[in-house]
């Protein structure tokens, strides 16, 4: 049990680093908090090695800590919306046999963006923000695919460490 907790802690720290590094990549889509979603790599790996409950904890704790350290209460709201939607989607999709880590990552990435965009649209009460959706979907798909491919390599190699 303590090994699991230690591993989860490490994963959370790793996810935080990914979040931080992401900020250094100058991609601006006009909506704050809308980033590539590299930290999702850690969540996907956690999902496939530690199971859904632990992975969810890693994701949520990461969002909370990153929001408190680098962001704001508002940013936390957007991230949580995206994070929860993303995780639920990933968890459900993982159970369907026709989907591998790639599909799950893609779903996670785009759902995270959709969640954030939906909250932003609600906050400013403006439907026209939906024009940000197509580029976000494309960016989310590309990142999701990359994360899926990397996860495919990482998970089998570290699975035995976490058992």
């Amino acid at each position: 049990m303590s090994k699991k907790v230690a591993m989860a802690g490490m994963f959370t720290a790793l996810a935080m680093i990914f979040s931080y590094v992401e900020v250094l990549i100058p991609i601006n889509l006009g909506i704050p908090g809308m980033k590539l979603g590299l930290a999702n790599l850690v969540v996907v790996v956690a999902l496939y090695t530690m199971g859904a409950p632990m992975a969810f904890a890693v994701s949520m704790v990461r969002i909370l800590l990153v929001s408190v350290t680098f962001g704001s209460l508002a940013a936390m709201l957007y991230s949580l919306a995206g994070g929860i939607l993303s995780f639920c989607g990933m968890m459900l999709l993982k159970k369907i046999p026709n989907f591998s880590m790639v599909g799950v990552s893609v779903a996670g990435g785009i759902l995270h963006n959709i969640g954030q965009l939906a909250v932003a649209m609600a906050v400013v009460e403006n439907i026209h923000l939906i024009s940000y959706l197509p580029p976000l979907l494309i960016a989310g798909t590309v990142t999701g695919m990359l994360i899926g491919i990397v996860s495919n390599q990482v998970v089998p190699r570290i699975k035995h460490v976490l058992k």
Partner: protein
Amino acid sequence: MKKGDILLICAVLVLAAAGLIYMNLGGKKSGGTLTVTVGGDVYDTYDLAEDQDVSLDIDGWHNQFRIKNGVVSMLEADCPDKYCVEHAPIDKVGETIVCLPHKVVLEITEGEEARDVDA
């Protein structure tokens, strides 16, 4: 990579492409009016034909935008991310510049006539 993955990726990319096509097809007209909303409520409207610099100082926050040659851009803002300032200038109907921390939206609208491109 499994069947479902490919299906999902294709579906999403098709959706995104369709969205982009729709946005560019619906007659990208140059707009006539800038509508500024704060927190969802209309704050004021500005005629794009009139070059002007406008300062918004609401709730202790500061945004400043410029209308010049029918194009709107955000000059300065004291929000933490400054995405609004970095945003490319807008001039077509439906385009927006958003300052999310300040809940400010600069949106190009048609003007007096009712919009029929989208709701």
